[in-house]
């Protein structure tokens, strides 16, 4: 390709990408700006792009209707607990599936993989029944527990642990290390990149989870952000400025994680195909 032809192609690519980037980020920008507008500006026709004054009133006012920051704390607690427990449980199981042979291991592993294909709504009704019979509905434990295990996570970690050479473990055993010692000082440090990618996804899917909290929680005190926001929009369906303020609050933590760990986000997606 000649230089000028390539430049023209690059220019066309820039043009397309700019258009697409605007289309993909504008609704998000509109949400951000909406969070600072007052209740008249937000429905004004013709619409105004920028708020007339940047005030944070909406972020305070929303608290008068709905305990938004309580939701925030609930979401954070549930997401952090889910992520930590999921990583621990999956890494431990993956260690066995990759490095500790026993009779029937293969069959068990296939069973794990099979459950990956079961969509959540098949287990939704019985899980709800199980949790209500054990008084776990409307508790933090009830929100956290169904997310603490992931067959997918176990599978990915197993693949990652498989790449660790056996010699490394053998050397540790000769030095007198136990299986537990090897787990903490050989396995875990070596699968850190996979763990980082997985933790972002565990956190994000817990943070966004809507269906389970929708049925597992009744009282306001235990609602997570997505659930709280959906209730808020059911009640104040046209108070767009307040709704946008709520959306912004729910977006901030994920955005911060994304800014600092963009590399792992991309890696995690390409590795797992989950979002």
């Amino acid at each position, binding site marked *: 390709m000649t230089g000028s032809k390539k430049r023209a192609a690059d220019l066309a690519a820039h043009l397309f990408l700019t258009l697409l980037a605007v289309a*993909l980020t504008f609704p998000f920008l509109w949400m951000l700006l909406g969070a600072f507008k007052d209740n008249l500006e937000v429905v004004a026709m013709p619409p105004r792009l920028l708020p007339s004054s940047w005030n944070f009133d909406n972020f305070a006012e929303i608290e008068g209707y709905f305990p938004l920051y309580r939701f925030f704390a609930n979401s954070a607690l549930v997401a952090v607990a889910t992520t930590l427990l999921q990583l621990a449980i999956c890494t431990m199981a993956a260690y066995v599936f990759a490095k500790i042979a026993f009779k029937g291991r293969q069959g068990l592993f296939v069973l794990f993989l099979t459950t990956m294909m079961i969509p959540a709504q098949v287990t939704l009704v019985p899980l709800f029944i199980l949790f209500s019979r054990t008084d776990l509905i409307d508790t933090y434990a009830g929100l956290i527990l169904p997310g603490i295990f992931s067959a997918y996570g176990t599978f990915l970690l197993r693949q990652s642990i498989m790449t660790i050479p056996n010699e490394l473990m053998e050397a540790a055993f000769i030095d007198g290390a136990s299986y537990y010692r090897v787990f903490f000082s050989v396995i875990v440090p070596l699968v850190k990149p996979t763990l980082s990618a997985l933790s972002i996804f565990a956190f994000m899917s817990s943070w966004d989870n809507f269906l389970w909290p929708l049925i597992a929680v009744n009282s306001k005190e235990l609602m997570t952000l997505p659930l709280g926001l959906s209730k808020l929009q059911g009640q104040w369906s046209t108070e767009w400025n307040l709704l*946008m303020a709520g959306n912004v609050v729910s977006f901030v933590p994920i955005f911060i994680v994304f800014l600092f760990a963009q590399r792992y986000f*991309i890696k995690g997606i390409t590795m797992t195909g989950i979002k």
Partner: protein
Amino acid sequence: MVGQRKWSRRTAAIVFLTPALLCLLAFQLLPMASSIIISFTDWDLLTHWTKMNFIGWDNYAQVFREEKSYTAIRNVFVFLLGYLPSIVVLGTLLAVLLNRPIRGVKLYRAAVFVPVITSWVAVSIVWRWLLNGQSGLINYLLAQVGIQGPIWLQDDFWAMVAIILVTLWKDIGFVSIILLAGLQDISVDYYEAAELDGASPWSKLWRITVPMLSPTLYFVVTISLINSFQLFVQVLIMTNGGPAGATSTIVEQVYRNAFQFNKMGFASAQSWVLLLIILVTTLALQQLQRRWVVYDR
């Protein structure tokens, strides 16, 4: 010594595996087994579970009798028809563009990703506002170019179009990032050889990029398909299944039947029918796969 090692290996296996096994049992296998049982009963959550009656295949027969079931299945296939080809084509184009070594490409990649990291609930609320018939920005912009916009979410045709477009908007970054990784795995040697032979960009796309990318494309199609069958949050928040069932989906009905009408048995039967549809479609896709996916490089 060796015996001791073997014993400690067994203990280690048990210790490390037990938490995962317990979770698998409690949150997957037990619920699945009980879901099968419940689907054959008339249980309605209000009566004590010891008093539920087995009614054979009645719930399943009811699923196939109900008009609503067909509406939901049809809606999901209409959604697929609009969504699946668009996400694959647009996602591939976007991935090809993002793969160009141009200045600022990292910024573009980040921008494309913003909808992916925004939660579905937030996305649905924002789009309900943007698509509002009177005060929505979209209709305002359409009016600027002389188009009278529809009332979107209240219109039984445009509501589904809106759901498709919003889902495309949310997912395109996700799909293109996966495809981008696939593109980056294709060796530049192929393109260099093609260029020496004087191949046009078009034939390079069809003869190198698409075949080499086909395993990733297949992966994307499978994931998008499974996600489409589980369409729920955007529908519940943007249209609540309406207007008049125009955007009602299978999961939305399972949810409504179980948790609003307390028809636990019926909802369970519905969820198994859904699983069957997913299974059949995925298997069909698997068969088709052999025709167009190129595995050997």
